[in-house]
Structure formats: structure tokens, C-alpha cells
């Protein structure tokens, strides 16, 4: 009975998949859902097999060092911490190494096996472990995490215990006990780091106290005892306990009498009993004791002082001081605000001090009123369970082989289809067999080994297939998935993925650290389509563009504008729209030549100076910063697409059946997630949310082809620098269409699912900063305010040299420092 009772704080096995080992969790909370099921909020523990091999290597190193040498152990823990601080950089190199060693891995594990078989290992506590014991101990090691998930309580399959490994403990003790696990490191599934479960005592002047030195003979300690003295009771008084008690009774009777005299009290306490009870409260007693002490324990003098000329002394505490209406107010407030006494005071009882209210609250808790409220609360709290009963689970496991039924017993030996012995213990007899391992190998486990496998995630005895299975699993947990264009194929190693990406997609994945170079937020350009521009012009009076631009955070009523513009659009020709968009205003003034004719100019022919200059005659710029790309046969511009590192497809699939919920807030730049050069999902969403919001504010439903492109300052809107992959622009649909199949496969940024695609923010060019040096600053000072303003308005113009003193260089020649903010 007690075995099937699961409480908060218990460590339990959870079965989330019938063929994989149990998961080990700690119950943090048990909640009843509205439909009567019980959900358990649990903290996750990870097995060795759940963690990537590179981290396991680190952990083992830690174990070894930790046992061998204490200081080394410390150092390593610091190293682990440092790693966390430095972020994925170091981490990544570790994984890189691990994957590059792919081939070496095999040899290594073999040599490890040799080591295991050949020699025995001595633990710090002086135990010697055989290879088998060592193998099994590995199944007992867990990694704590702060990951919290919610699982249905019916998946609980039994209890276990998990403890922090203490270095004094005998490791063998764990092997001899069933269902016991230990941990010493904490795994962070998001950052992929291991940490020691350990705080640190810091050393330095910021942490330690300055130790007072012992006083010399005759030196004073700077404490004036008189000043400190505030004795209010001393036991050396010469009175007997009985005398003191008598005095207390007398003081209480004085108090009762005082209440009888006091009008307000007699209303509150209509009966003598109540007055007497009120007079017996602690305030009166403490006051009596104080009085006695003040009068040097002379009872008669103390008694006299209780009845001064003004009448008997009346001591009332908060409980008594408060009127019935105040008490009601308080209860109401408590219901509304809970125990936020500051708010209660502000909104309900401003004439009371906070101290009054707190004192009253704790006294009020002793009353019947509170007890009633408590009952109500208790009913509410019922959905939060303290324990849950889960009966033993005895449905057959799908992995169980139904060989027991088939009459395959020949001469007492069990001959089945495969006829194989137990993969772990090589037993040939078992009441129940279970299929295990890769299906093509047709391995099977006997009953006890199956139980072991489910609980500990490994085979009792080391076997080749077992090792393979484990590796497969831990590899799978961080398998390399192809992110290009929803391909989604998985590869065991990164090198395989790179090969795949190069062959199938023509994308070269960088082998170096994909740690992004930190940049400021990418610039955003809003591409406005023609209809929107028309809309803006038509409804200028509604949008009030000047006002809106001054207050960019003000909402714009988009639906209203859309409706209004549709109304206004009615009956207008295309030319009207074209005019609107071109000229910007609704008024037509006519051409200058026409106007001049109307003004009396006889010569209707256009003067030569008014004709546009022929393009060939235009002065050529010596250097074009961003030359236009060549045109294709259809007249569209051909951009050489720059292969993107990896497309920003966020891969959230986890090997587990159940969705894991991140417990820790991923705040700011969680670099850990950027392992594969993927921008954090949150960020991307922000960006999306931002631009759609932005567009909606402008009264725009993003047309299907509309794109928001991050453009560096040097590019200027609409002229993307060659380094930036150009998104398909609105009205140029054929760009995305594959004209040559080979090229289309290259990472052109194609739209997926009709949503506007955003170029990875990492691909935005570096921002340019103007770095003002001393000389430029001096230069600025030499200009007049007007000149400065003019220059600011026309940044492309050279500032006249004559304005400047000959020795100082012009601002345009001042080198502009490009700073990539890293």
C-alpha cells in the first residue's frame, strides 16, 4: 500500500515509452486536473546515455580528478563554471573535437574496454571495483537538472532514491541496494553544460570580515554600557513567584475595572467576563511586569502607580483597539488583496500604521473568524494533492515476446525463432522474453535483465551490442539535422551532415565555430507596395503622417483607413493613382512649360535647359560603390546568391515523446542555443512580430511577396549590398522561380509557407560607426553652428576647405572606423 503511495518529493520511475528505459524524475507537485486526472510536475534527472559523449568524457575526468586530488577537483569545478560563463565557444570546441574524432572513437572505447577488463579500479574510499561493478555503477550515475516537466501520474512505475554522491561513501553500497542512484553534477539541457552541484565560498576583501584584534590590557572597547543598558526585568528581585502572580492578578483586576469605566470598552465588551478576558491579554501583563521593575520590585508602590490620579491604567492591544467596522474593513481587504498589508493600509485603513495592521492580523488569526476562512481555503487547496496512489502497472509490455504460448519446448530447451540466449546474462531460460535492441539483430532479454534495463538503462553485463545501442542513443539525442529547405534528414555526425548539405543542397557548411559574431540588431526596411502608397495619399487626413511620425508608438486605426480608402478609390482611374503616387499631392499644377505659356510666355517650345540631360552625357562617377547586377533576359536583375550558412529553421524536435518545457527562462542572448548558427527562436519571432505589427500599423496587410530586409546603413534602402542575399521583391516573382535547376537548389532564400522570410540577422552587414577622434571634434568646433547644421542636412557635400584652418583635415578625409560590435 505504502509502496504505491507517491508523495511530493519522491523520486520515481516514469515510463514514457514502452521500449526505452524508465525516466527518473522527482515529484515537485501533484495537481488534479479538472477532468479528474492527476498530473505530476517533475524535476528531470538524466542518465549517462541521455547526455552527449563529449560531456560524459568531461564528467569522467571530473570524477577521476575529484577522487584523486581535492584541489584538482576544485580547479575542475571552476573550469566547468568558467566554461559556462564563456558560453558556447568553449563548449562548441568540445563537441567539435568529439565529432571530428568520430573514427577515433571506436578505438578509444576499445582501449577503454581493455582497461576495464584488464585491471581493477580503486576508488578513493579504498574500494576496488571489478570491471562488471564499474560497468553497473555507470548505470547508477545520474545528472541533476533544473528542467521541469509535467507528466501524467499514471505513468509512474515505482520509487527509487537519488542522492548527492558524497566522497566518503562506498560506491559499492549503491550497487548492493536496489533502485538507488547518485549524482554529483548538474546538467543543463539548454546550455549543454555540466556543473558541480556546489556553491562557492568566495575569498577576498569583498567577502571576509576584518578581524578585530584582541584588546590590549586596559584598552576600552568603545561600548558604553550605560548607553546600552535598558534592563526591564531581572530575576534578582527577592520576590517569590507567588507574589509576582498576585501582583499580576491585581493589575488585571485594575484593568477590568478600567474597562468598566471606559465607555468605548463597555460597548465592545458587554459582559464582565469579556472585560476580564480583555484585561488578561499580554499587553496588560507586560505592562505590569515593567511597572514592577520600575518600582524596584516594591509591590505596594507598583500597585499605586497602576492607579494614578487620572484613573486606573488601561492597556489595550490592537485586538481591542480596533472597532467592529475596522475589523470588517480589514477582513474585506484581506480577501481582496491577500496579505499585501501595504495595499490594505493604503486602500482600506490609511489611519492605521503598518505595524498596527500586522499585529492585528496575527491576533485576528487566533479568532474563530479566521478558522472559518481557513476551512474555505482548505477546500480550495484540495486540487493540490500531497500524495497519489498509483496501482502496480501490469499490462503486458509490447516488447514482450509471446513465445511462452507457442509450443516450442523441445526436450526442456527453449527453441524459439531466434533461439538466442539473453543478450545480457546469456541465460537460456526465462519465464518471459523481451525483444530488445535493433530489430534486425533480433536480440532478446530475459525477465530480470529486462527489468534491469528498464530501470538502469543498460545491460547488466557489458556487451558489444549494448554499447552500440547506448552510443546510438546518445548520438541520437543530439543528432545532426539538415535544416535546408525543410529537408529534415538526420545524420549521426556533423561531417556526414556537411557532406549531405554539399551534395544535395549545394550548401557549404562552415566547419569552423559557427558562433555568431555579435551584432547590433539588424536594420529594418519597410517596402511599401503601390496600393499602400495610394492608400496613404488618399487618406492623408486620417493618417496625419506628420503627426504619426512624431508619435511612432501611437496606434493607427488600420481598418478604418482601409475602408475609407476603398471608398475613396471608387471611380478613380489608374492614371489618377499613378499621379497620386508620383506627385504626392492631389493637385495638378501642370507642366512648367504649360504654366509659363499660361503666364504669357510666347514661345511654347521647351527651352533646352529644361530638357533632361541625355544619360550618356551625365558625368560618370569614378567609383560605384554598389553596382547594379546584370539584367537577365526577362529584364529582372540577377543577383549572385550568397549561400547562407544554414537556414534559420529552428529545430525543436526532441527525441523524447513528451514535449519538454523549458524551466529556466531563456533570457537575453542564450548563446547556448546558437550552437548550430541558428538564431534563437524567440528572437526571430520578435522580429516577425515586430514587422507585422509595424506593417499593420501602416495599414498594410503584407502582400504575399513582401519582404522585410535587413539592410546596412551603407547599403541604403532598396539597394542591398552584394553581401546580402536579396529576397524576392514584390512584383518580381520569377526571381524565386528556378530558371536553372542547379542554382535554385543553392540557398536562395525561398519563402516557406507564404510567410515573409527574414534573412538571418546574422547575415546583416556590419554596422558602420562614425568614430569621432580628437581631430574631428576639434574640427567640428571650428565650424559655425549654421555650417554644422547645413552639413548635417547635406551629408554628401564636402565642407569647403576655406572654412577650415589649413592644418586640419576635412571631415571627409578623416578615416571612418568600422567597428563591429562584438
Amino acid at each position, binding site marked *: 500500500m505504502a509502496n504505491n503511495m507517491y508523495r511530493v518529493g519522491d523520486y520515481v520511475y516514469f515510463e514514457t515509452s514502452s521500449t526505452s528505459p524508465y525516466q527518473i524524475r522527482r515529484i515537485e507537485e501533484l495537481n488534479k486536473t479538472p477532468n479528474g486526472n492527476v498530473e505530476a510536475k517533475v524535476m528531470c534527472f538524466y542518465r549517462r546515455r541521455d547526455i552527449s559523449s563529449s560531456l560524459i568524457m568531461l564528467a569522467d575526468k571530473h570524477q577521476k580528478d575529484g577522487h584523486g586530488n581535492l584541489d584538482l577537483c576544485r580547479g575542475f569545478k571552476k573550469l566547468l563554471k568558467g566554461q559556462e560563463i564563456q558560453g558556447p565557444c568553449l563548449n562548441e570546441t568540445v563537441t567539435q573535437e568529439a565529432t571530428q574524432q568520430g573514427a577515433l572513437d571506436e578505438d578509444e572505447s576499445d582501449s577503454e574496454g581493455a582497461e576495464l577488463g584488464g585491471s581493477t579500479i580503486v576508488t578513493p574510499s579504498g574500494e576496488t571495483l571489478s570491471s562488471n561493478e564499474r560497468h553497473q555503477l555507470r548505470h547508477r550515475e545520474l545528472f541533476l537538472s533544473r528542467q521541469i516537466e509535467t507528466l501524467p501520474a499514471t505513468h509512474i512505475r515505482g520509487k527509487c532514491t537519488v542522492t548527492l554522491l558524497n566522497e566518503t561513501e562506498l560506491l559499492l553500497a549503491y550497487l548492493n541496494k536496489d533502485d538507488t542512484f547518485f549524482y554529483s553534477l548538474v546538467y543543463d539541457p539548454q546550455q549543454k553544460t555540466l556543473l558541480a552541484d556546489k556553491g562557492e565560498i568566495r575569498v577576498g576583501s569583498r567577502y571576509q570580515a576584518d*578581524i578585530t584584534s584582541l584588546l590590549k590590557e586596559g584598552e576600552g572597547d568603545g561600548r558604553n554600557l550605560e548607553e546600552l543598558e535598558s534592563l*526591564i526585568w531581572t530575576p534578582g528581585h527577592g520576590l517569590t513567584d507567588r507574589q509576582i502572580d498576585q501582583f499580576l492578578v491585581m493589575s488585571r483586576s485594575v484593568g477590568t475595572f478600567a474597562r468598566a469605566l471606559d465607555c468605548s470598552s463597555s460597548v465592545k465588551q458587554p459582559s464582565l467576563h469579556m472585560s476580564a478576558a480583555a484585561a488578561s491579554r499580554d499587553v496588560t501583563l507586560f505592562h505590569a511586569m515593567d511597572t514592577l521593575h520600575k518600582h524596584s520590585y516594591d509591590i505596594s508602590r507598583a500597585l499605586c502607580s497602576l492607579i494614578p490620579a487620572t484613573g486606573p491604567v488601561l492597556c489595550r492591544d490592537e485586538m481591542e483597539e480596533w472597532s467592529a467596522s475596522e475589523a470588517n474593513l480589514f477582513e474585506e481587504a484581506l480577501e481582496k488583496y491577500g496579505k499585501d498589508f501595504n495595499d490594505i493600509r493604503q486602500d482600506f485603513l490609511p489611519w492605521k500604521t503598518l505595524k498596527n495592521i500586522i499585529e492585528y492580523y496575527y491576533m485576528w488569526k487566533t479568532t474563530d473568524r479566521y478558522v472559518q476562512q481557513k476551512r474555505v481555503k482548505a477546500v480550495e487547496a484540495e486540487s493540490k494533492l500531497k500524495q497519489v496512489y498509483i496501482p502496480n502497472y501490469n499490462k503486458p509490455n509490447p516488447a514482450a515476446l509471446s513465445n511462452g504460448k507457442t509450443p516450442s519446448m523441445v526436450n526442456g530447451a527453449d527453441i524459439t525463432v531466434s533461439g538466442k540466449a539473453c543478450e545480457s546474462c546469456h541465460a537460456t531460460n526465462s519465464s518471459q522474453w523481451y525483444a530488445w535492441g535493433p530489430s534486425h539483430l533480433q536480440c532478446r532479454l530475459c525477465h530480470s535483465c529486462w527489468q534491469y534495463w528498464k530501470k538502469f538503462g543498460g545491460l547488466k553485463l557489458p556487451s558489444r551490442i549494448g554499447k552500440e545501442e547506448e552510443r546510438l542513443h546518445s548520438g541520437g539525442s543530439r543528432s545532426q539535422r539538415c535544416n535546408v529547405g525543410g529537408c529534415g534528414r538526420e545524420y549521426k555526425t556533423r561531417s556526414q551532415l556537411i557532406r549531405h548539405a554539399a551534395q544535395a543542397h549545394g550548401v557549404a557548411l562552415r566547419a569552423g565555430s559557427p558562433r555568431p559574431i555579435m551584432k547590433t540588431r539588424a536594420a529594418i526596411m519597410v517596402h511599401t507596395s503601390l496600393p499602400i502608397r495610394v492608400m496613404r495619399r488618399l487618406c492623408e487626413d486620417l493618417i496625419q503622417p506628420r503627426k504619426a511620425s512624431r508619435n511612432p508608438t501611437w496606434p493607427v486605426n488600420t481598418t478604418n483607413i482601409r475602408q475609407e480608402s476603398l471608398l475613396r478609390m471608387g471611380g478613380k482611374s489608374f492614371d489618377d493613382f499613378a499621379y497620386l503616387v508620383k506627385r504626392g499631392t492631389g493637385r495638378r499644377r501642370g507642366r512648367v512649360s504649360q504654366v509659363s505659356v499660361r503666364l504669357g510666355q510666347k514661345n511654347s517650345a521647351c527651352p533646352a535647359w529644361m530638357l533632361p540631360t541625355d544619360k550618356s552625357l551625365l558625368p560618370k562617377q569614378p567609383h560605384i560603390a554598389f553596382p547594379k547586377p546584370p539584367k537577365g533576359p526577362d529584364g529582372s536583375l540577377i543577383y549572385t546568391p550568397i549561400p547562407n550558412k544554414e537556414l534559420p529553421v529552428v529545430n525543436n524536435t526532441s527525441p523524447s515523446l513528451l514535449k519538454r518545457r523549458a524551466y529556466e527562462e531563456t533570457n537575453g542572448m542564450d548563446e547556448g542555443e546558437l550552437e548550430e548558427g541558428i538564431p534563437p527562436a524567440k528572437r526571430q519571432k520578435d522580429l516577425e512580430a515586430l514587422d507585422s505589427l509595424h506593417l499593420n500599423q501602416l495599414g498594410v496587410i503584407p502582400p504575399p511577396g513582401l519582404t522585410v530586409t535587413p539592410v546596412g546603413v551603407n547599403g541604403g534602402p532598396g539597394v542591398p549590398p552584394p553581401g546580402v542575399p536579396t529576397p524576392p521583391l514584390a512584383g518580381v516573382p520569377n526571381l524565386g522561380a528556378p530558371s536553372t535547376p542547379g542554382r535554385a537548389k543553392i540557398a536562395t532564400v525561398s519563402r516557406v509557407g507564404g510567410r515573409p522570410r527574414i534573412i538571418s540577422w546574422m547575415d546583416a552587414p556590419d554596422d558602420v560607426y562614425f568614430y569621432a577622434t580628437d581631430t574631428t571634434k576639434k574640427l567640428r568646433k571650428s565650424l559655425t553652428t549654421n555650417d554644422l547644421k547645413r552639413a548635417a542636412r547635406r551629408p554628401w557635400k564636402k565642407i569647403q576647405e576655406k572654412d577650415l584652418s589649413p592644418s586640419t583635415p576635412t571631415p571627409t578625409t578623416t578615416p571612418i572606423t568600422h567597428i563591429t560590435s562584438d
Partner: protein
Amino acid sequence: MGGKTVAYFYDPDVGNFHYGPGHPMKPHRLSITHSLVLHYGLYKKLQIYRPYRANFHDMTRFHSEEYIDFLMRVSPQNVQNFTKNLGQFNMADDCPVFDGLYDFCSMYTGASLEGAVKLNHNCCDIAINWSGGLHHAKKFEASGFCYVNDIVIAILEMLKYHPRVLYIDIDIHHGDGVQEAFYLTDRVMTVSFHKYGNYFFPGTGDMFEIGHESGRYYSVNVPLKEGIDDASYTQVFKPVIEAVIQYYCPTAIVLQCGADSLSGDRLGCFSLSTKGHGECVSFTKKFGVPLLVLGGGGYTPRNVARCWAYETGLLIDTDMPTEIPYNTEYFQYFAPDFSLHPEVITRQENGNSRQYLEAIVKHVYDNLRMVQHAPSVQMQDVPNDGLNIKEEEQELDPDARLHLSEEDKRIEPDNEFYDGEKDNDKDEDPEVTSSSATKN
């Protein structure tokens, strides 16, 4: 009473603070404790003081001025002006800014400080301040419901008179603030018994934290696992404290009696009864060393009040009836059993095996043995006095009257003085001896 004077410090206002809704730390537990002390008749046998309130100067004896200045000025009304400092001083979830924060700190710190002064001046043998014992506070920041570390400030005061102060911590949490403050010194030995592991606050207190530099081996940590019961706790506590006192010979003891190690605590996970908890107090008292008893954690107010009232009784050797006096103002709090020693409900199995505890005690013994061989306890403190006297003497007699006696003192046996490598000549010129001696 045994002739012991027990001073008890209580400020009538200290209970009327509130950390905020949902916060487990409830200063009002101190009022409940005090009410029990009165109604159990312990009040009459104590020397009761309304404590001094610590000032800025007292607090900056340990803490940084910047931090205390912040505590003085911050309030829930102006907290938005201090957003930068909140992070800097760790004033987040655990340590909220509440009304009267600074007053609260100055009350409990003042009480602990005054207790230390009283002990220094031999005004009492035992000083009790249940409002103190906030052992997590750090020099530059608040931590774990603690803002000002009254323990460190009290110990610093005691160090004026006491060469060696022993700090014992039976709170369920590790006494990291105190340990950190005295991590490098051998004048204070910190001993903490606490739950360790599974992310239990504050995460420090491994048995390998033993101190640093001259404080090496002067931090003793006893990491325990959840669910420890009376018998197991005593099995560790008694031998460890016995050995510590034997090796360290403290001249004063500070005992932090955090009541969150009791069973049924809101945050704790031990299974101690009030008797088991009190046993640690009476065991410590037995050594007859000046003792400063402080409160600490404890998040189920009724149990805290029970425990500390009971321990007050133990410290003045008064037997207390098990029934809670019915006229106690907070009588209702002690429902349904109305007993001083409620039945222990074990929520968790005892995770501490006998072997584990034995191993830990052995580890502590091993480290303590190093203390005995470490010379610094005596070497560091005693020469201070001796040196001063010598200096005074030197200044006192430049004339010839004492010259001879001093020379006699400093003269070295002839056979100890070697001129050369193998010079064993005993007929050395006396002039040479004396001149070289003074040079020495």
C-alpha cells in the same frame, strides 16, 4: 538556575514586520515565542533587556558602507529609484524590500551586539536573542532572507575579549555568510550542520570547505541528507562538538538555533523534534563557556515558537509542562494538540545511513587533528600580549638599572652559541657573547 545569569533580549516591535505576501519568513514568530516565554513563567527568571538598536557604524563593522547606506534609504515607496542597486545587492525575490526594513535590521543586530557586549563584560553567562541569527547575509549583499549579518557583527565584538570564538549552526541551511566572513581566520571556528545537495539553499557547505590560509581547518561542515531524525542528529552533533571544543578550546560560543531543522517546517526537510533540537542547545550549554544563543531560520511559526520557548527553558534549567498554557494569547496557533512537543510526522525517510554519518564524523576528526598541530591558535594570539609587554620594557629602561637583568634574560648559554660551523669553544670572550646577544 544553577547560578547562571541568562540575559534575554527582546524588542516589543520586532515581531511586527512583514516580508510581503507569500514570503515564508515571518518575524511575528518572535512575538509568539515571547508570549510563550511569559506564560511559561520563564520571564521571571530571565534578565530581560529591551535591546539597543544597532547604528550605521555598528553595521559597517562588517558590511560595506555602500550597502548599509542603501538599506537605510530604500523603502517600498522609493524602490524604483534603486533598481540598479537591487541587483547589485541581491535584493530580489528572497530578500524583498519591505516597510521598516532598516529598523528591523537594526533591532535584531542591536540585540545580538548587545548580547556580545554583555558577555564580554561578564554581565551574564548566556545571552539569548531569538530575533538574531541571520546567517546568510554577506558583506556586500543580502541573501536568503538575511540583510545584515548580526552574527558576524556580534562575533567581531566578542573578538575584542575572546581569542577564540566558536560558532555552531544548527539551522537546516548552511551558515555560509558567517563561514565566508571568517574563512581566512583561525580566531573563529565555524561549525555548521545542514542539509546539502539537490540544489538546497545556499549550495555551499560541502565537507571539503575547511577554510583557507590561516583559517584552514577552521571551517567545519557537516553535510546531511534529508529526513534526519533525533537519534542520527545527536549521533553526529555530540561527537563533533565534543571534539571541536576539545581541540579548539573556545573562550566563547555563538549558537545559531535555526528552527527550520525541525520536522514539519515549511522549507526544511529534516525530522527533528523540539526535544532533539533542544538537546543540541543543552549539550552546548554544558561546556560552561560564555554562550550567545541566536535564532535563525524557521518557517512554521508555531513550531519555531515551541522550539525557542522550550530552549529558553532549557537554558535556565526550568522544566516546562508539555501543555501550552491556555492563557497564551496565541493559544489557537497550537491546535490541534496544544502541546509543546508535537508528535513528529516523518514526511521523508531518513536518507542518512549510519555508515554515512560515521564517515562524516571521521572526516571531521581527521581535520580537527590538523587543528591541534596547527600552531597558530596559540602562536598568533599569545605573542600579541607578550610582545607588547616586552616593547614597554624596552621603552621603560634605557638606563642601567635593569640592564643587568635584561641582559641575563637575553644571555644565551655559551654552548648554544657557535662562532663558526664547528666551534664548540666554551672559553669564549664574555664581551663577544653579550654584544652578539644584544644584536640578536
